[in-house]
């Protein structure tokens, strides 16, 4: 396949108005990615799928990455697509698209209409990162249960405290258990009182 700069030029020619930026991988991996803006990711994906020079008919891997804000740089959620071609046996072309970390603005266009293989993987990205994929046919949680409200793969996710009730009177454990459960049974209060007096 051609060098990444040339691929970028080709994509720019056929999808006018797209903003594409090259992002390098680790020096050894040699898998530079194309960062495409949200409005043109579908068009660029379609170009790579249908252009006879690429024929990227196989969308192998879809995932999200959460980047926290650093200094004055805002954080973002990046969705990464790895495209391969089965017809021409080459690849990968890596497409990246960024969305805001704010839950209500965290939206990108879905590529499931292009590659059916994105269906479950985009559902997973929605489930674990909270990215809403517009035009996804069936955007539901896939691994977590329906009633779950948060998105556990985000870097700022705090798991709920689940200290189990421990009857042995260690005051530290008792306090944490009481805090976690929002209750403090009378026996625990007595134990805590005794511990404090000592």
């Amino acid at each position, binding site marked *: 396949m051609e060098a990444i700069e040339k691929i970028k030029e080709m994509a720019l020619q056929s999808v006018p108005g797209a903003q594409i930026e090259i992002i*390098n*991988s*680790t*020096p*050894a*991996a040699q*898998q530079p*990615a194309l960062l495409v803006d949200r409005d043109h990711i579908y068009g660029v994906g379609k170009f790579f799928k249908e252009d006879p020079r690429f024929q990227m*008919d*196989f*969308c*192998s*891997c879809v*995932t999200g*990455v*959460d980047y926290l804000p650093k200094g004055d740089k805002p954080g973002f959620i990046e969705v*990464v697509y*790895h495209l391969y071609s*089965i017809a021409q*046996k080459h690849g*990968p072309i*890596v497409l990246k698209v960024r969305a805001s970390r704010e839950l209500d603005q965290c939206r990108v266009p879905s590529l499931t209409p292009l*590659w*059916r*293989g*994105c*269906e*479950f*993987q985009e559902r*997973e990205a929605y489930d*674990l990162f909270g990215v809403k994929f517009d035009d996804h046919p069936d955007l539901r*949680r*896939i*691994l*977590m*249960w329906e009633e779950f409200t948060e998105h*556990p*793969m985000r870097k700022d996710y705090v798991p709920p405290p689940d200290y189990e009730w421990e009857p042995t009177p260690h005051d530290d454990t008792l306090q944490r258990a009481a805090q976690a459960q929002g209750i403090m049974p009378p026996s625990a209060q007595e134990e805590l009182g005794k511990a404090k007096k000592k």
Partner: protein
Amino acid sequence: MIQPLAEEKGYSLTPGSEGLIETQTLEVSIGPQHPSTHGVFRMDCVLDGETVVQLKPVMGYLHRNHEQLAERMAWLGSMPYTDRLDYFNSMTNNWAYALSVEKLAGIKVPERAEYIRVIVSELSRLQNHSSVIGFMLQDLGAWGTPLLYAFREREKILDLFEAVSGSRMMCNYMRFGGVRVDFDDKMLAMAREITGKFPKFLDEFEKLLTNNEVLLGRCQKVGILPKELAINASISGPMARASGVEYDIRKVDKYGVYGRFDFRVPVGEVGDVYDRYMVRVLEMRESIKILQQALHDIPVGPHIAPEVKLRNFKIPAGDGYGRIEAPKGELGFYLVSDESGKTPYRYHVRPPSLINLTILEDMCLGHKVADVVIILGSVDIVLGEVDR
């Protein structure tokens, strides 16, 4: 309620029943405690009589957020944990992860280690495919016998894995830049013996199954997956090849030393359950060919790259994706390293089992409930990998 749903799915009701009898569809939940779902997996089916008109796979019962756990430890720390993804093939899981990390860090693996990796992975493929066929026959109603025939052979391979890694299933065998323990002559002799005797078992297995009338009747033209859909839905591994997709990552990427071996890629024509069975049998025969060549050519030398540090192992900032042809399909790891480089900033597993389930509904529509069980059996899923 059924009528619009059935029309939408392009499926016609029993002729003559329209308007005469009031029919109702039935919603049945197959699983998560049903033995035929191969673990804690659920299929929400809508049935018209015995025929499936809608089917939604439901997973996540075994979800433990493997990816987040891996992001909290050092790079090597999650190597034993990859064993638990597809617990039938811990060797290939290890290899996929090691290969991805080596790709990111630019580590060169010594030749002997590459050959050892090929040997253990192909043995892993043999035991996976034979067991899967056994399980599929179990789903067909052949209780026990084919599965135990397969397990008898699997035991021999697991004995070798135990001798070499100390564990039968959770091998934790590979390290960045090589493998943990070298194969000594005794182990190589064991591997040669297994390879030598396996074709005989396969002949016996095939004699019992391949032209079996019940197997042919139940599997042919059931659960057909067209080639275009298989590619579009990112189906990989034996399932894609049964549908006629000639794509094997061992041939395409030539990772490790696969470029040196002479083997063919079996491809199906129809894409039904029988083709998936047949492709697996043929793949085992090709694996034996690879094993014979690898065991013949294995060079002497170090089994792990000496320059790779076990402690304080770091990777420069950036990302990368590595993939191998695991027995179930394309197993890939997408890894991101940040400035500190000590732990993965992002660690994503591309599980073949989960993605191969994307088209489960398409394959099952219009078939009977009993066929759903064997279609799922032919997909070959392991829930440790689906749910992660």
